[in-house]
């Protein structure tokens, strides 16, 4: 009986379960404490944030909730974020799916170099291209527009969206394709009718990860969106510093929490594919 229980818990010889749960539990606590702190900041009145002695049990208040909707154009920031993110993901998929198809299902000269070039753009520090990109968008008259954000988010994410989808496409058995070919289907019809349905989980994973990176993007958004016209949530937060009022922490915490919830739900839904997506397909989760 004891042996079976040990096996069920994945216990190894000489390993202490107490130690295992102590370590995992301690890290879980470390993960969650700042989150609770977030929530407690978001739901307390402004007067109880920065005090001579920190207040651990604050009074409950919806100050921040009223502030973000009434004092700031939060609806516009939200709309900007959503529009820029969805637009960028659409651009990415339109460009990445054919590219991944080409890189995974064809043999041709220069293919691996092209693939590596696409991958290598992921290594470019945003700060390196920040100055030229700023001038590019200024000359195009796109500064302070969500179009610029859409284009730049798409560019940042394109490399790994392509590589994730490519990795899933490599897994499709060649026979499936050959069968369709003998039926006289052309390559593009095969892509549309066989490949895309087969790699749908990969496409969704790539889209979710691209969405998260786009929400988080900070430096470019800061440079491109210099007026509230084009602020997204991420940069709007950094500007919640109402002059003499100082940094408005409770509004920041509440907005961050509200933005976290939908992302959390989506990520839990694709949990199984996450490790593969995060390594651009290098790990088969």
């Amino acid at each position, binding site marked *: 009986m004891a042996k079976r229980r040990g096996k069920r818990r*994945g216990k190894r010889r*000489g390993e202490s379960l107490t130690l295992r749960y102590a370590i995992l539990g301690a890290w879980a606590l470390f993960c969650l404490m700042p989150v609770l702190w977030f929530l407690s900041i978001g739901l307390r009145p402004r007067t109880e*944030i920065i005090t001579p002695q*920190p207040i651990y049990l604050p009074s409950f208040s919806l100050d921040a909730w009223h502030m973000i909707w009434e004092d700031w154009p939060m609806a516009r920031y939200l709309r900007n974020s959503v529009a820029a993110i969805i637009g960028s993901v659409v651009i990415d998929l339109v460009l990445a799916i054919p590219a991944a198809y080409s890189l995974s299902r064809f043999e041709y000269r220069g293919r691996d170099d092209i693939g590596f070039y696409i991958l290598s753009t992921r290594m470019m520090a945003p700060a390196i291209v920040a100055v*030229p990109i700023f001038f590019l968008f200024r000359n195009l008259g796109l500064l302070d527009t969500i179009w610029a954000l859409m284009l730049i988010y798409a*560019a940042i994410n394109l490399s790994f969206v392509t590589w994730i989808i490519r990795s899933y496409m490599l897994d499709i058995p060649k026979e499936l394709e050959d069968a369709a070919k003998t039926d006289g289907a052309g390559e593009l019809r095969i892509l549309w009718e066989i490949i895309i349905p087969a790699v749908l989980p990969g496409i969704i994973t790539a889209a979710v990860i691209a969405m*998260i990176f786009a929400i988080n993007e900070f430096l470019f958004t800061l440079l491109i969106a210099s007026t509230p016209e084009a602020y997204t949530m991420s940069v709007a937060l950094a500007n919640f510093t109402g002059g003499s009022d100082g940094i408005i922490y409770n509004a920041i915490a509440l*907005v961050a929490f509200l933005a976290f919830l939908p992302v959390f739900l989506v*990520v839990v839904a694709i949990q199984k594919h996450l490790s593969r997506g995060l390594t651009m397909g*290098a790990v088969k989760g």
Partner: protein
Amino acid sequence: MNKPANSHAGATPVASACAPGRTFRRRSKCLRNALPYLLVAPAVLYLMLITLYPGVFAVTQSFHEVKFGPWKPVGFANYAKLLGDHQFWGALRNTFVIGSISLVLQCLIALALAFYAYRDPWVKGWRIVFLIPMLFMPSAVAFIYKLAFLDARVIADLLIRLGFIDDNIGFQSSIWLSRGILILADVWQWTPFLFIIFVAALQGQDEEIEEAARLDGASWYAIFWNISLPMMMPVIIVALILRAIDITTMFANVFIITKGGPAFGTETISYFIYRTGFKFFNFGYASAASVVMLFITIVVAQLVVKRAFVSARS
């Protein structure tokens, strides 16, 4: 792009000829050869726009003095100045110091956690809990750490209550404590990234080998050290490279928490470029720094990353 040299007029109306649903039995040979290039071309052209164009632009601009008026050619003056600029070298060193400490900590913690979690019956639960920090906006995380350490002094207060220290700590005035905040925030938020990947790698390993070693009397740490770890190596390297790229480009935390201070002790290279270009409007000089970084990136990419990704895939 690299279209085959022998492609003739047939290659032009490709887009319409390739509409889904049409058969290709009578299609010419050159079109068949061009198809994979045509499929990948839009993505490559798009990426060139944000890498090649800025690259050329930055190199050109780096040989000019660009402040408010027209560009003034100055030859190698920007690079010469860069060589003697303590703040630039300091920023490189800070990026390396903060980045490597943070990366080593994250890797060790994630390995330990993954090792304890992957055979646990509640591994899915642990994964969801550990994932949470990664899903908060980095700018908001930066503010919350700034609040806890600096503005509301919660951490100092807790340490006093627990009896570790007697007096308030000036996190803001110590270089190493400021670096510590950046490292802690990064470890908190991004250890899960490595954890998730490592757990997947451990779960994917062949259980029979592990079982055979166990029956031979090998202890669990010997199994981990001699079997699991070497098997995971390619994955660990890929994961660390991806993490290293993001750490070296750390910006939001520096921008929000420390502003590079005290005494430029936490100024990373990204923040240096931002400050030079967008606060002092010295764009030519910022571009020179960008070009140096670009050069380092390309060298590292060719030497390390290419090899790592190839070995992880095979």
